[in-house]
């Protein structure tokens, strides 16, 4: 069971990583990032259960807080770029190149 949980966690993390690397829509990239963070959080909870220590569950609270702040900043950037460019395609976001 322990290994199965770890495999599920790894699968979710890598699916999210594939989404971050592949998609062009900025909002979908943010969502894939959430999925990645959630896969990592599942591993925290799995270890908390199988080691018998509640610290992993406490760490999940910190992960959730960081995820919330990351989403807030990411959405602020998305709105700002949408106002400037009229698009949320990340290939239009390469302003620093020019």
């Amino acid at each position, binding site marked *: *069971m322990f290994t199965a949980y770890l495999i599920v966690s790894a699968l*979710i993390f*890598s699916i999210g990583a*594939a989404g971050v690397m592949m998609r062009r*829509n900025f909002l979908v990239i943010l969502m894939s990032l959430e999925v990645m963070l959630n896969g990592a959080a599942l591993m925290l909870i799995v270890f908390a259960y199988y080691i018998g220590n509640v610290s992993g569950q406490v760490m999940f609270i910190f992960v959730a807080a960081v995820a919330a702040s*990351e*989403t807030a900043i990411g959405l602020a950037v998305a709105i700002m770029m949408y106002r400037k460019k009229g698009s949320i395609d990340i290939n239009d976001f390469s302003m620093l190149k020019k």
Partner: protein
Amino acid sequence: MAVIMFFILSVTTIAGALGTVVSRNAYASALWMITAFVGMAGLFVMLSAPFVAMLQIIVYAGAIAVLILFVMMLMDRRVLSNRYRFNPQYFWGVIFAAGIFADIAVLAFKLKINLANAGKNLAVNGSNTQMVGEVLFKHYLLPFEIIAIVLLIALIGAIVLTNKKSEEAE
């Protein structure tokens, strides 16, 4: 019984994650993401972490998903469903993701931990929430305060970034 529940919940979660990544419409992506989060909350319940499962539903499926959906509602519909879903380098994305998965999977099969304490020490007086609260405020008080400041700074940053007046002043 536990194995069947684990199978159902993990299939739900993985299907949600896959749907988030591959669906053409961004709204559908967000709904698949909520599916993944709820399935994940079920997995947390199975790992005897009910407090964390409720936190998952409230914070992720309740707050973060609704925030993303609200931002989508503010945008043009045609902007969201782009003709090109994937970057040209999607092949390398898949290769690297498979590499990450293989890496963690090998670790999962090789890892040997002492399972004697599995499922113990997770509740005090039969309450998982009380245990989490005690550990949080006894041993992790400083990180808790720091995370509060991080959240505050992030939200102030979001307000500053989206402020129209400061943009016009530039």
